[in-house]
Structure formats: C-alpha cells, structure tokens
C-alpha cells in the first residue's frame, strides 16, 4: 500500500523533472543576472540532482510540508490542497452517500421484481445513465434547471459560511451522483438477483418467513458486501475524479486546482495533488478490503 504511493510519487516526480523549460529562468526573467538566476535555482531546489531532490521532497512531505507553489509564490502547496479539499471532500462524501442510497434502493426494488416490467424499465434507465458522460449531465442539468427553470445557480461556490452554499451543490451532486447511482443499482441488482435463487433463500421461504423478512434479513445482508466495497472505491476515486464536473460548475475544488496547476506548469502543486489523490484511492481501497472481511465472516485476512 505504501509501496504503491511511493512508486507513484517517484514516477510523477521523475517525469516532471524531465520537463523541458526552466522554472528558475521563468521566475527571474530573461534579463536577470547569473547570480540572481542561481539564487532562484537554489530557492526552488533545482541545483541538486534528482535523487537528492526527491529524497528531500519525500522527507518534507512525510512531515506534511509539500513545498511552495510556483504559481502562487509564498503559498504552501498543502494550504492550497486543503482549501481545495474543503469543497471536494464534502462533495465527494455527499455524492458517495447519495448514489449508494439511491442505487441500493433501486437495486432492491429491481431484484424484488426481477424480470418484470419495472425491472426492465429500470435496467434501461441505469444503462442510459452509465453511458452518459457526467460533464454532459452537468450541462444538461444547467440547461434545464438553471437556464430554463431558474431553480438553481449554474455554477460557482460562495463558501461554506453562506446559507446558499448547499443550493450551489445540488446540480453537481446530481451530475456526479446519478451515473454512480446507476452503477450501484446494477451492481446490487446483479448480486441480489443472484442470491434470490440460492438454496438458503429457498429454505428461508420454505420455513414460512414472509417475503420482506427474506429480502431484508437474508438476501440484503449478503448482497450488501460487494456494494459496500464499491462504495469505498467510489469515494476514493471521487477526490481526483470530480475534476471535470468541478470545471463544468466552476467549483473551486481540488480538480480546478489540478487544472490550474497543469496549465500553469506548477510542478510542486501538481506533485502534491497527485500524491493526495493517489493516497486517497489506495487508502480507501485498503479500507474497503478490511470492511469486506468484517462484513463477510467467510473471508479472513491473512
């Protein structure tokens, strides 16, 4: 787990070092004296060879210091990332919970009517939402709910202190949440429908339990396991994956920061964001594995 994050950090750092272009020259301008140029190089840590630079970066990163942004001189990268996360983290959490709850409800509804009309209709709907790019869903929601109906703002975020903060997150929540809800619905329908024909369910019915007890007590408990594991992964991936939708709604989150860093060639910021998002994915997938073992007594961790 740690090894994965380390491999990523090394690869990204090495790749970005190979970049053409000279950050120190960019910083001091073409007419600067050689002394000032050298000083800028030292300040950016560019005078050292790559292994030494990476070792120093890693050492400082472990202490929570990700260096300073090049684009916003003097601002620590960690502060910028925390500022972005203060929007992206709650949004990701909201989306994960919303899509999980909606998807599971739809999946349960579908599997209880397996093969009948409501199930087929829902299957068609989920197939559609899985094929829709989430940024287009965002544009469509803006077109309907802010341009035509004027219910919600089309973008921007006033900050958490404002009372209208949540209103600004409604459309992004749906744009990110609906495709993921469709995914959860299909996943839970497949697992639940599979379980409905198993022997232990037949036994439960045969001993006279009513259908609701069978569904909630026996089938759901077993069918929940893959969904909970997928929930962890969804949440982890959202931190770096909400980027395009953040751009659609011009939300100042981690994704917008990553875009700025990439287009402005802010290497320390880009490195920091990569580290945080990859660590989030790795941590949540490990957590999902642990949860898997906790929920399913048949799985024991080695």
């Amino acid at each position, binding site marked *: 787990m740690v090894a994965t994050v380390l491999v*990523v950090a090394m690869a990204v750092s090495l790749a970005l070092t190979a970049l053409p272009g000279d950050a120190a020259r960019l910083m001091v301008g073409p007419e600067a004296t050689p002394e000032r140029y050298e000083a800028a190089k030292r300040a950016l840590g560019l005078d050292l060879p790559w292994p030494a630079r990476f070792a120093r970066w890693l050492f400082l990163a472990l202490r929570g210091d990700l260096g300073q942004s090049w684009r916003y001189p003097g601002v620590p990268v960690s502060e910028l990332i925390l500022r972005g996360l203060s929007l992206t983290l709650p949004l990701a959490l909201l989306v994960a919970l919303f899509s999980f709850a909606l998807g599971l409800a739809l999946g349960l509804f579908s599997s209880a009517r397996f093969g009948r009309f409501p199930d087929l209709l829902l299957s068609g709907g989920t197939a559609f939402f899985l094929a829709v790019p989430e940024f287009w869903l965002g*544009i469509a929601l803006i077109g309907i709910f802010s341009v035509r109906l004027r219910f919600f703002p089309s973008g921007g975020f006033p900050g958490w202190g404002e009372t209208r903060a949540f209103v600004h997150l409604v459309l992004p929540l749906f744009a990110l949440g609906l495709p993921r809800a469709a995914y959860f619905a299909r996943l839970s329908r497949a697992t639940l429908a599979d379980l409905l024909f198993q022997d232990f369910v037949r036994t439960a019915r045969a001993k006279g339990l009513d259908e609701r007890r069978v569904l909630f007590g026996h089938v759901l408990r077993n069918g929940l396991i893959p969904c909970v594991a997928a929930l962890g992964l969804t949440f982890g991936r959202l931190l770096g994956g909400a980027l395009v939708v953040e751009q659609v709604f011009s939300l100042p989150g981690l994704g917008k920061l990553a875009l700025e860093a990439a287009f402005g060639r802010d290497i320390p910021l880009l490195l920091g964001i990569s580290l945080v998002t990859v660590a989030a994915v790795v941590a949540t997938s490990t957590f999902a594995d642990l949860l898997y073992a906790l929920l399913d007594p048949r799985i024991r961790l080695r």
Partner: protein
Amino acid sequence: MTRLFWGLVFWGLGFIPVLIGVFWLPWEPTALVARPFLSPSLAHPMGTDWLGRDLLSRVMAGGRASWTIAFLSVAAGGLLGTVLGGIAGLGGEILAEGLLRLFDAVLAFPPVLLALLLAVLLGRGLPGVALALALFNLPYFARLTHAGVLTLKEREFVVAARAAGASTTRVLLRHILPNLASALLVQTTASLSTALLAEASLSYLGLGVQPPEPSWGRMLWEAQGYLFQSPWPAVFPALFLISAVLGLNILGDFLHDYLDPQLRAFILLRPPRDRGRKASTP
C-alpha cells in the same frame, strides 16, 4: 440475441456517421455556412453552432478523434497489458510482484489526472491523450491476463505442453491466451466505452484536439456557453457519444454472457418463448 441487435444498432448510430464523415461531409466543418444558432432544418439537419457552422458536419467530423483515440489507446494498452500480465504470471516471483505494484500504481491514478500530467509533459495535443488512455487501460488487461495465467498454468494441458518442451512464449500464445480470449474481448468493449467517455471529458477540458478542428467534448464545452441562445449544440454531439457508449456496453454484456459456455447453455435453454418462435420460423 436482442441484446446483440440493440448493441449493434446503438453502436452503429455513434460510429457509422463518423465513418461516412471520413469520406463525405455535407458541409465544411470549419466553414461559416449560415447564420449562428439556427434550429434544425432540411439544409442543416442539426442546426448551426455559435459561429454558424453546420452542426451535423461538425459532429460527423468531431467523432474521428474520439474513435481514433479510443481504438488506438485500447489496442496499445490491451496488447501491452496482455503481454505484461502474461510475463507477470509466468515469470519469477520478484518480477511478478514488481509488475503488479506498477499496475496498482497506474490504477490508483484517476484517468483525467493522468492525462493532465501527460499534457504537461507532451503538450496539449492528441499524443498525450492517447498515451494517457493507453496507460489507463493497460492494468485492466494486465491483471485479467495475470489472473487467468495463474489459474491456467497448473492445468494438465499446459503442464503437458511444457513437458513436451514448448517454450514459454509458445505456451502463452498457443495454450493460455486462446482460453482467455473471451474475457479479453469483453474487457475490450468495456475499455472502448470508458476510453470514449474519457476522451470526451479531456477534450471538454481543452486537452486533445485543438480548435477549430471539431471534437465532441470541445463542442459541448462551446455549447455550454451559449445554452441561453440554443440548446441544440449541447444535445447532438452528446447523443452520438451516448449512443456509441450505450451500444458498446450492451455488446459487452451480451458477449460476457454469450462467450461463457456455462451461461450460454443457460441463455439458449432459458426463455421458452424465444425457442418457440425460432422453431416456428421456416
């Protein structure tokens, strides 16, 4: 079988117009041919965009980049991933462990972030996007092949082939990969549909094809700014994209069930209605 039909129909709706567009387009996609924001009409079946360019021509030409990148990146990622997965499965323990770590590392990257990093390295053009999506697809194929090799390499027919003196390459190519072909084919359809979606997201962000050349994602970005004036530019490029992805997903579903011998028996035996219909047709 209905799934095969609908899968092909939806996929064709997103692919065939683009294929025709390679040879023939109703209008020049970058030329200003009419007033801006025209609604659909006979001369311009999808209307015109904010500059007065014909939307149908732009949609037909804009899909070129999407499909090229999707096919190229899946082919490259799939081939390299399959080879690396095979090596991880048949090679030594240290090699396998190292390769698996590498796949995990790539998998942990959100695809858009990967593309952003490569855009910084290679510039904003098509090569960066294609490479990012190839890299993104690689671990899926690699892990699939690796898992398949691990289960197959202890089977009698593989052991027998080795005992008969077949080289590792031969065992992999002649004995193991044919048995994984169906799983790899299903993964290919899934990868194609995610590659299409990812390419659209990236060109929406301004990576990939550069204007004035059209691309579906960039057309949607332009359309978002003019939602007040006309909704059509935001609708039509998306319809083609959604149809293509939907078709690929349905095809993947169908292939997944059809290529699994156990499930295939299930499909053929299960619906008595279908069997009856088939028997009655001469």
